[in-house]
């Protein structure tokens, strides 16, 4: 993978270099190093701050109780459940369509035809559409036009469409790296195209597809703008009983509680706790994805 060549280390110069050249390189590289270090510091500042302030709030009760006393005490259980439901729901929308679309792009469509170019352009455009526009769209189509109301199903559909480009791209990337020889081998043995895809191509691409899917779940878990008007409830302490119920969600909960609460002082600890749980979800997801990536890579190498 690593195509970067090993040129001489930065500090070693051939004899003929002038002082000025050496100095400008040393300075430039030092600047790069400092700026890169700075970004690491920013990340640790954000994570550290939220973990530091939130860790004290986190408790079993906080994770398993509903909010109480006008959201000034109690836990965030309904919001956790709501976020998990939305992740599941959006996965149910985006995964099948996204994977099928990716398979079409890589296996069926002609690589140089207009269809691939057009679809890729549209997919890239869709991935650039701001999340608030998805929120507006979801409200107009699912909540109003199809009459779902503010509901988990409307939220899931909106979030599903939002994560669709990511799923498609992941699938495409995964399938692209499978050598054509393997497909040809399968076809030569008399398998049909569908059999080849189902029994050979997809299983081989699966590890990387799964890694990508998990990452897209992470993105969905933190999205707020798309669910503002399609699903999220300010206060809905009981658990939803059907897909047409509203639900609370962690990111929306954090937004409400940190900007428009009744008692900002008393709510601050809850906000820290909620932010920490959100960060933990993202951390866990990226750790799992990283672990899977390494695990699959090792296994493929052994083969």
């Amino acid at each position, binding site marked *: 993978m690593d195509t970067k060549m090993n040129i001489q280390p930065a500090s070693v110069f051939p004899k003929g270099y002038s002082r000025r050249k050496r100095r400008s390189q040393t300075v430039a590289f030092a600047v790069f190093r400092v700026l890169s270090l700075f970004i690491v510091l920013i990340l640790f500042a954000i994570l550290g701050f939220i973990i530091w302030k939130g860790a004290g709030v986190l408790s079993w009760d906080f994770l398993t109780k509903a909010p109480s006393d006008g959201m000034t005490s109690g836990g965030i259980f309904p919001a956790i459940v709501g976020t998990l439901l939305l992740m599941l729901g959006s996965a149910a929308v985006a995964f099948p369509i996204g994977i099928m679309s990716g398979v079409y792009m890589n296996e069926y469509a002609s690589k140089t035809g207009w269809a691939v170019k057009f679809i890729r352009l549209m997919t890239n455009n869709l991935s650039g559409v701001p999340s608030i526009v998805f929120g507006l769209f979801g409200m107009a189509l699912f909540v109003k036009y199809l009459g779902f109301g503010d509901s988990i199903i409307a939220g899931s559909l909106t979030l599903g469409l939002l994560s669709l480009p990511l799923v498609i791209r992941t699938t495409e990337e995964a399938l692209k790296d499978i050598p054509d020889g393997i497909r040809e081998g399968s076809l030569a043995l008399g398998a049909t*195209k569908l059999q080849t895809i189902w029994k050979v191509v997809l299983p081989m691409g699966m590890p990387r597809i799964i890694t990508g899917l998990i990452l897209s779940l992470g993105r969905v878990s933190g999205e707020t703008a798309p669910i503002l008007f399609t699903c999220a409830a300010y206060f809905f302490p009981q658990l939803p009983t059907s897909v047409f119920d509203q639900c609370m969600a962690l990111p929306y909960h954090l937004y409400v509680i940190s900007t428009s609460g009744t008692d900002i002082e008393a709510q601050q600890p809850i906000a820290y706790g909620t932010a920490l749980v959100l960060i933990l979800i993202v951390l866990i997801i990226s750790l799992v994805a990283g672990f899977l990536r390494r695990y699959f890579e090792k296994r493929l190498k052994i083969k």
Partner: protein
Amino acid sequence: MKRFLERAVKWLLTASGFVTSLVILLIIAFLFAEGAGLFSERVIEDGYVLALNRENTVKELSAAEIKAVFDEDVTNWNELGGPDMAIETFRLEDADDYFTEEQLGPQYENAGSLIAALVESRPGMIAFIPESMLPEDPSLNFIKDKTISPGEVLAGSEWFPTATPAPLFGIWPLLAGTLWVSLFAILFALPFGISIAVYMAEVASGRVRNILKPIIELLNGIPSVVYGFFGLIVIVPLLQQVFGLPVGESGLAGSIVLAIMALPTIVTVAEDAMRNCPRSLREASLALGATKWQTISRVVIPASMSGIASGVVLGIGRAIGETMAVLMVTGNAAVVPTSILEPLRTIPATIAAELGEAPAGGAHYQSLFLLGVILFFITFIINLCVEYISSRSKAKYN
């Protein structure tokens, strides 16, 4: 049977291939359908009229003029092309100042004729009253009610969607706020983004790179609302202290948060571009005796310029569309910004903050969808630019 299945699956896959295109079309259709409705709405609130005395020759007022009249920023009719008379405004709430409760009647049933008589007797008065209240054939003049014009919306410099009698939907303050914040965000992010990308692609050892890569990914994965929260709790008070501001929520706070959020996009795309720079170019430069830094600055960076540019443009797109973080830290004042230290408001933040309160189907609601259309097209154009830039860079080396 088997062949039928093959064919059915092929159709199914083809169909799902076009889902994203369909979604784009649907987004355009639905946003347009709601947003375009704004231009068939009336300037004056539904069911109300603006009544004038017969002697007043003013026939038409724009929404901005109506607001100026009722805010008492304009106090004489001659400023609006009418006779030289002082303007007196009358709203329904003012009825108690002019009439007793007995005169008005318990159900306000006499209010209409009383107000009509009042306006008839006062040459400079303008009254904002429900049409249904007026007696038949009152001898009054009325301000001609027009539909909201695109010019007033696109070039209007005041965003006041809840103003009565005539709400103002000038998007200029919001557009300016969006561009202003994004511009500064990119200015902050650019030096960092490029340096980190160069460092990761060219300078850092494999081990350092393996540490930096997941950190950048993690930075990309942190939800925007968490950035907003961090900005609200840490950056906003900090700026307030450092610059001695009355409120810390400002465009600067927004740009700092956005800069951090746009960094991963810039770094990832720019780094990819530099790694894809052909090895032969690098080797040729080194073989000619250039130092590593000379090779980077004179060969690698110029050669991967288009990739770097598309990273930056993508970062701008992300900054323009970002909602929650900006909503939480910029203070949301809908005025044309004159300095980055003032509160301002962006298009996405406006939609997020106001859609919940706007009655469905009303002018305010439709205006927010129109903002959505504008936002969609801004990002659409940005994406097309990225496609164009990157297709050019591909053509260069393949």
